[in-house]
């Protein structure tokens, strides 16, 4: 009997140990992480999607030997002679087409240029706003002139280089990491907070002695854990699949991704400070993220936008983050040489946190 009682007590104690609460900050952070990890879609968008994106874009823009420049020759008595001349260049793939077909091929981008032989002269049809057409014109002209007997005056030799760090995928990976940090920071915080507010969970927490700073800090901590994982997922994949290398120090990369993660968490908190509905916060979030997706140089350099827009573009937090990440990863630059974008990022981080905490509503 006494023994049986003892067993009961032991069982009871074992149960107690399991149901013991930890520090509120730990419990809140664990709840955050559980909620996230049990949401399959969120896991997909944060971890799987960026890897798929790296893979797809890395494949699409992989560096193989440059493709031959497609050229159309309008059918004419001189067409075959022209085709002969052009076939001397290994970089040109010429086809003879009827004038209508040639014009159609040019319009649809199947050929970069159309060559129209007129007696012993040539006429080039091309669109000067297309970079590959301008290149094609130079190439075709060079081949035709030489074929017709022009001789080169200076001797030149080509020395070509292709090294990791200069490929599109090398440009892309830091940008994708930046974009991912923005997305997960904004959605991860903004959405979760507004859902908690709309379900009156925030109000319920406000009715407990919970420290409000613990609630907000728990988001930072869980973000930090996931940030390490999501950055690592892209980096490891890019390294294995495309031979991507980080040239700068890992410590700097870690510091900057951390800063980036916190900055976008701060912006996410700011976005989520007031809205009470998912629709409200979604609109606000798209309004903030869309310009940065387009302008901040994730997929192509933001330097391509007009000069007047540059001060605005450079002041965006994602532009700053992308620029620093590229400098660190691709060029092996130091943190100190990137103090301007770092200062921009820090400013966004501090300002958005301060405002968010000021205007944050618990109900």
């Amino acid at each position, binding site marked *: 009997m006494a023994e049986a009682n003892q067993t009961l007590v032991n069982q009871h104690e074992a149960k107690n140990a399991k149901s013991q609460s930890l520090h509120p900050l730990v419990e809140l952070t664990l709840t955050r992480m559980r909620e996230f990890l049990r949401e399959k879609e969120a896991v997909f968008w944060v971890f799987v999607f960026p890897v798929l994106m790296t893979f797809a874009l890395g494949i699409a823009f992989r560096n193989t030997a440059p493709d031959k420049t497609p050229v159309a020759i309008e059918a004419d008595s001189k067409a075959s002679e022209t085709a002969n001349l052009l076939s001397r260049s290994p970089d040109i793939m010429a086809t003879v087409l009827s004038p209508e077909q040639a014009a159609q091929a040019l319009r649809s981008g199947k050929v970069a240029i159309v060559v129209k032989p007129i007696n012993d002269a040539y006429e080039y049809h091309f669109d000067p706003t297309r970079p590959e057409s301008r290149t094609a014109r130079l190439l075709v002209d060079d081949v035709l002139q030489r074929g017709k007997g022009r001789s080169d005056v200076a001797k030149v030799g080509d020395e070509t280089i292709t090294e990791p760090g200069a490929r599109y995928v090398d440009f892309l990976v830091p940008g994708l990491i930046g974009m991912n940090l923005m997305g997960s920071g904004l959605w991860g915080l903004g959405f979760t907070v507004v859902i908690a507010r709309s379900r009156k*969970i925030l109000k319920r927490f406000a009715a407990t002695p919970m420290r409000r700073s613990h609630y907000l800090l728990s988001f930072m901590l869980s973000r930090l854990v996931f940030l390490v994982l999501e950055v690592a997922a892209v980096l490891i994949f890019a390294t294995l699949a495309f031979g991507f290398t980080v040239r700068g120090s890992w410590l700097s990369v870690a510091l900057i991704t951390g800063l980036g993660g916190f900055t976008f968490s701060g912006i996410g908190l700011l976005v989520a400070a007031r809205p009470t509905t998912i629709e409200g916060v979604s609109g606000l979030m798209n309004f903030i993220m869309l310009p940065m997706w387009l302008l901040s140089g994730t997929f192509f350099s933001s330097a391509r936008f007009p000069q007047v827009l540059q001060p605005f573009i450079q002041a965006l937090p994602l532009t700053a983050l992308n620029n620093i990440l590229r400098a660190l990863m691709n060029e092996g630059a130091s943190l100190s040489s990137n103090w301007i974008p770092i200062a921009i990022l820090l400013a966004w981080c501090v300002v958005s946190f301060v405002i968010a905490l000021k205007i944050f509503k618990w109900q």
Partner: protein
Amino acid sequence: MNQRVALRCAGLVKRFADVTAVNGLDLEVFVGECFGLLGPNGAGKTTTVEILEGLTPSDEGTVELLGQHWNSGNDQALRERIGVQLQETQLAEKVTVVETLRLFRSFYKRGHDVDEVIHIVALEEKRNGRVGKLSGGQKQRLAVACALVSDPELLFLDEPTTGLDPQARLSLWDIVEKFRASGGTILLTTHYMEEATRLCDRVAIMDHGKMIALGTPAELIDSLGADQIIEFSVTKPLDDDPLMQLPAVNHLHKRGEVYALTVAEIGVALPSLLAEIKRQQSELVTLTTHQATLEDVFVSLTGRMLRDG
């Protein structure tokens, strides 16, 4: 009898853009009692409770809770001592019952063991089940468990059984009664008169932000001066005055086609009512009688039904 006061508010006023939700409310809740705020939807019950819980600031009036006031620098300490269940809280669905309670437990310095609370609200079988998979009654029991986890002195329950089926309601009443029996103080709002009658030591009936009656359920029903209600409808409308003159009739109330007579002695009132209907050359269509309830108190005070809102 000099009872200790757990909660007191005086002259409470809360205005929103175009309505005055609470309009000069005075309340006193004694230690160890279950006090009910009964009233239709929109009577100002939830606003009142949220002011008392320190979640909504009032425009006028004072609140004293366990001898303390909100916003006097010790809100955290006060929150340690109260348990709150809000009407519309939907707890996170992806976490389990025990995880939810562990989280709430972690906010308090002292309180029940988590499994103890799970036992109190009889959710042992759902201990490791996700909140999203719980039934309405189970969710509500979990919400009450979150309020009980700190072993509070004062428990606020805002419409704890609204939308629950009778079985789930009974099991929630059980929990409330046990808490009350262990010496806890409860302030609960409801628009179910059975709930107020069954659970509450005293009831305040609220309408349009004001208290219109206060007392034990028995006192309130007695105040009708009647123990039976006769409800009937007839083929041809009756004159009111002769009905009021009938013996043992205290009150007449008409709602659409239905007449409701509050009577002291049904044995006396009923035969004379039938005679009067005949005299006025009308005929009975329906007739029912029932024991007077808090609902009838509300009807006699406001002319409306509780559930009409």
